[in-house]
């Protein structure tokens, strides 16, 4: 069969890829097809893309300032034409605060992932590849952190470091890496004795090179799935810390802190506390749906569970 008669679909799905690029694109195409067949997963992706869109274009999309309200005339207004979601006790537009709050949520999620995932990846791959006492010690430490109640430990850390969004991110990251280490170690153990690793060893590659260049890339896909599934939990923990006054400090429009400040008016002006909760629910639902879809698409072994 010649190149010219092949459609693009056939080129992607061929059994005999002519180049590494074609093989990779083909695999991505299959995963994408499997992903988009799952309607809930697509909804999740749309939600997350929407969050990113809101965060990037917050100044253009927000109708009012998130920090400066009209204390004289616009305190605790009900949802209506001027303020779609009403105003809070300082006369600030709640919709605008929610839109700006998406930046904080995204910041928390991204930073925790950027800090925790590499730690887990490094600990897990090194433990799995080195084996022996290195493995024993590293996994012991991992198990200790895994045995902790996450939220309570994060609370204690923030109490020690002092409240603030930066410290909240550090505390959540410290409590989030152990599952990633477990996954990375399990993946490492399955490939550690395979032929291609032995071939690289014979070529004289150093252990670090093998771990960094030949083992870590294989762990990435299952790690991405796990991190995505964890995002919802991270958002909820961050919101919980914010609700307790330990996360982002006023006047930052953090969603959990917004619920806490709306709590005082819950009986008469319920929308002040209700709106940010809906935002948290939608975003963490989005991450859960996306994570489920990614797991089914990237890892057919775990599907159906």
């Amino acid at each position: 069969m010649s190149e010219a008669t092949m459609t693009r679909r056939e080129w992607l799905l061929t059994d005999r890829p002519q180049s590494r690029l074609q093989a990779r694109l083909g695999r991505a195409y299959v995963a994408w097809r499997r992903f988009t067949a799952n309607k809930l997963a697509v909804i999740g992706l749309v939600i997350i893309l929407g969050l990113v869109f809101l965060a990037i274009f917050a100044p253009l999309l927000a109708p009012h300032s998130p920090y400066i309200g009209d204390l004289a005339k616009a305190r605790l207004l009900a949802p209506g034409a001027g303020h779609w979601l009403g105003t809070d006790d300082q006369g600030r537009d709640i919709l605008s605060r929610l839109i700006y709050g998406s930046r904080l949520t995204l910041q928390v999620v991204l930073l925790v992932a950027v800090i925790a995932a590499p730690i887990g990846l490094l600990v897990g791959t090194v433990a799995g590849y080195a084996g022996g006492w290195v493995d024993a010690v590293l996994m012991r430490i991992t198990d200790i952190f895994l045995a902790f109640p996450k939220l309570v430990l994060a609370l204690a850390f923030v109490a020690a470091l002092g409240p603030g969004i930066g410290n909240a991110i550090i505390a959540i990251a410290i409590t989030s890496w152990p599952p990633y280490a477990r996954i990375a170690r399990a993946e490492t153990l399955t490939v550690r004795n395979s032929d291609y690793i032995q071939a690289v060893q014979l070529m004289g590659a150093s252990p670090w090179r093998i771990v960094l260049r030949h083992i870590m890339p294989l762990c990435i896909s299952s790690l991405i799935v796990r991190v995505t599934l964890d995002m919802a939990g991270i958002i909820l923990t961050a919101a919980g810390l914010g609700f307790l006054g330990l996360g982002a400090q006023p006047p930052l429009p953090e969603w959990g802190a917004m619920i806490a400040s709306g709590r005082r008016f819950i009986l008469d002006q319920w929308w002040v506390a209700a709106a940010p909760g809906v935002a948290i629910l939608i975003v963490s639902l989005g991450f859960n749906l996306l994570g489920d879809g990614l797991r089914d698409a990237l890892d057919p072994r775990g599907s159906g569970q």
Partner: protein
Amino acid sequence: MAGFLVVVATTYLGLLAVTFFIGRVVPIDPVLAIVGDRAPAHVVERVRLEMGLDLPYYQQFWLYMKGVLSGDFGTSVLTTNPVMTDIRRVFPATMELASVGTIIGALIGVPLGVLAAVRRGSFTDQVVRIIGLVGYSVPIFWLGLLALLVFYARLGWVSGPGRIDVVFEYTFTPVTGFFLLDAILNRDWAAFRDIVSHIILPASLLGYFSLAYISRMTRSFMLNELGQEYIVAARAKGLSETRIIWGHALRNAAVPLVTVIALSYAGLLEGSVLTETVFAWPGLGLYITNSLQNADMNAVLGGTIVIGSVFIAINLLSDVLYRMLDPRTRSR
């Protein structure tokens, strides 16, 4: 078994090391927290020595460990009681709440999971999945606030925050600290009704939280069992579908389910931190958050150690139960 105990011991040691470390990096000077910032220098110095803060860190850790293992978490600055006394007073409230929550979660979650597995891919399956996903994604403190607004303030179906009405403050004498049990022991049915109407809302919320996890795991275990050959054999024998599902498949799925329910119980102890804050439930969670707000580190770390210890104990217990219930693990 010996290796098992070593694992538990090192995990516990790690827990203490982390709380010790947190206690030392605190920006609040523990001496000033006790003597106040107007104390003369020689008093500050004396208290410093009494607290052993001049010793090297490994000796401090040794003292700390000895104290914690004998139940001494120091004194709470806020209540001026020993932290252990405070925790003993508030802990039953948390356990009661988490227990009722787990019971609700298991009673609803297991049947939902079974139903979803039996009717796999159907509308019911989708509904159960959505219920679970929302449970994973909803901020529990927010749901608690809305539930209070609707069921307490608007509809008046349940009692508001707290464990029991002030009316019963002098007539009701707690014995065990578990109020539901106490009311039954005292045959105080008016108090019992009041306690139920207080606990039902926060416990249902925690129950929903654990239901999400329990129903998902039940579905996956049941799908696994329903694909086994003994199910085909039971069908071939002509057993009714009800008996196959509830008598045969669920019975085998129950073994791993015990672990799941135990772990979800541990999760609820943690989830109670936020729930108790919303419902002014006088348990360990509220104690920790109140102490946090007053920079009372001894109390915070004591509470952390207690919840961590319960976590470790439940993990251990579920492991032991699993071995006891599943004969296949015995030979290994």
